[in-house]
């Protein structure tokens, strides 16, 4: 609750800062202060269990340690994002305050979609996430790619919203309790009513779209590629894991009891996602676009939480979200400093910028899922969840085979950095200040610490 209110409020503050403050850097500092406050407020609620402003939400919002810790992960990652890439936000255009305002609105949407208890708030939350993102995607107005990405994102996003609404309508229609509350859906005895089934499929489709699961992922590569890189970083991490969290929250609370009736859908989507994400990423030449496919591939792994629908999966999702967000935000921060976004652009980086190359390596290893990185722990929990689920073991084997393939493209960058040399300057050293390096090192340290002792984070869940 704290998070929802404060992020909205701070978004408005940021909005006005754009109007009243002429300096380009001040909004960034304001934003950092805001996100810290947001984090703290959320932590307070996590700790005390009580919101500062107690509003009667008529049970439309439900907070618990689980979704609050997820929000903590999201806000923490956003803080890291602001610190690492805040300066790059300033470079996108002149509306710096507005950009940050939109990001705070997105966070408001994230907070909603993490705590909703009714389909209405799910819908509004997702829309509050989406609409600012359409804008951020197109924020590089002179860049045709950015324009194109914005329109594609907008059209397909609205399309999926329509599908989601149709799903909600059918769920409501099929729900003999005549309610939008996700914990108040009458699933009937045995096989679920057909209307619920139709609505469920439509919801799966639209949520898959939001988390860019195949075959509803088509917007992802183009949009991630076209948007200003700094927003790609934000979109592909924080927003994406929020989508996942909403996905899991919705299906766990609404349809968790009859999971065996819809698991096959998730299996199909998971396999398609793993296949398309991992395989297509292999051939990409642009690191940015490769990261887009990589995010699809990672989504495939996160889908295992939905496939499993048990405690391991939920814990794993939080862990995965943290690992994936921190690593990706960190890696995008490095991409942003590169002169050349192709893989060749990374050639010889280890020689020129050993610290940055090292942290990049840790991020990539985490994304690959090498032990002692948080990424491994995330994958490990996911696999554990999937195995415990006890059905369709072969899916797990498919998943790890694709995990092995994922090493292929992540390691291409490591190879380029360490084992190839180049005369080109990979990074303008003007851009690289010690503070940036320290922040990268901190991010890498977070990855390693979570990799070694994930219970630091998981401890919150059972606060």
């Amino acid at each position, binding site marked *: 609750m704290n998070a929802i209110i404060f992020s909205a409020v701070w978004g408005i503050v940021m909005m006005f800062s754009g109007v009243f403050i002429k300096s380009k850097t001040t909004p960034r500092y304001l934003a950092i202060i805001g996100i810290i406050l947001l984090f703290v407020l959320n932590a307070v609620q996590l700790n005390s269990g009580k919101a500062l402003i107690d509003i009667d939400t008529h049970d439309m919002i439900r907070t618990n340690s689980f979704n609050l810790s997820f929000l903590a992960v999201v806000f923490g990652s956003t803080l890291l994002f602001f610190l690492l890439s805040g300066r790059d936000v300033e470079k996108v255009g002149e509306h710096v305050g507005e950009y940050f305002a939109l990001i705070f609105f997105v966070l408001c949407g994230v907070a909603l979609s993490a705590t909703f208890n009714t389909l209405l708030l799910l819908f509004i939350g997702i829309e509050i996430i989406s609409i600012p993102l359409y804008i951020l995607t197109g924020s590089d107005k*002179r860049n045709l790619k950015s324009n194109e990405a914005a*329109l*594609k994102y907008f*059209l397909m996003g609205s399309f999926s919203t*329509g599908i989601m609404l149709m799903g*909600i309508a059918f769920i409501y229609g099929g729900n003999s309790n*005549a309610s939008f509350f996700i914990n108040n859906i009458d699933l009937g005895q045995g096989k679920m009513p057909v209307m619920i089934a139709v609505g469920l499929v439509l919801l799966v489709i639209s949520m898959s779209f939001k988390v860019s699961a195949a075959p509803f992922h088509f917007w992802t590569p183009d949009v991630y590629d076209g948007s200003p890189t700094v927003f790609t970083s934000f979109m592909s991490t924080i927003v994406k894991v929020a989508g996942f969290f909403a996905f899991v929250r919705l299906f766990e609370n609404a349809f968790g009891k009859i999971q065996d009736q819809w698991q096959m859908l998730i299996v199909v989507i998971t396999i398609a996602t793993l296949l398309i994400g991992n395989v297509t990423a292999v051939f990409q030449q642009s690191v940015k676009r490769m990261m887009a496919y990589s995010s699809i591939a990672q989504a495939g792994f996160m889908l295992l939480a939905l496939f499993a629908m048990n405690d391991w999966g939920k814990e794993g999702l939080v862990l995965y979200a943290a690992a994936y967000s921190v690593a990706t935000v960190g890696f995008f921060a490095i991409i942003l400093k590169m002169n050349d976004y192709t893989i060749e652009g990374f050639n010889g980086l280890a020689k020129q910028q050993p610290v940055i190359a090292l942290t990049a390596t840790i991020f990539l290893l985490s994304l690959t899922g090498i032990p002692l990185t948080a990424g491994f722990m995330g994958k490990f929990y996911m696999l554990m969840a999937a195995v415990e689920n006890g059905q369709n073991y072969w899916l797990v084997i498919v998943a790890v085979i694709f995990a092995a393939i994922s090493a292929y493209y992540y390691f291409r960058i490591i190879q380029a950095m360490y084992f190839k040399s180049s005369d080109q300057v990979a990074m303008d050293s003007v851009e690289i200040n010690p503070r940036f390096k320290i922040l990268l090192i901190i991010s890498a340290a977070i990855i390693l610490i979570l990799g070694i002792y994930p219970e630091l984070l998981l401890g919150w869940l059972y606060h």
Partner: protein
Amino acid sequence: MDIKAYIILSLTLFTIGIIGVLVRRNAIIVFMCIELMLNAVNLLMVAFSKMHAASAVAKASVNYASDAQIFVFFIMVVAAAEVSVGLAIIVMLYRNTHSVDINFLNRLKN
């Protein structure tokens, strides 16, 4: 009326919207088709609300049946916001390319 009639109607409208998205290339028309889809949903929602109102459950609490209509209201709200953003994007694109043909949007691919 049987609810099936409304389901058929709104699904038909919905499908027409989908087909429109599939076949039309003018971004504005595509967007209008999406609006049509939303309207189909709205109609269905209202129909469902009245369906529940007819059934026993809703009699206990009158609000239950209002829920769906409130939901429709919110859909309209969101649609309005979406339209403003969407049209802004289309206009921006038009300013840069002098075209709203979505098939020309293929700088980003593969």
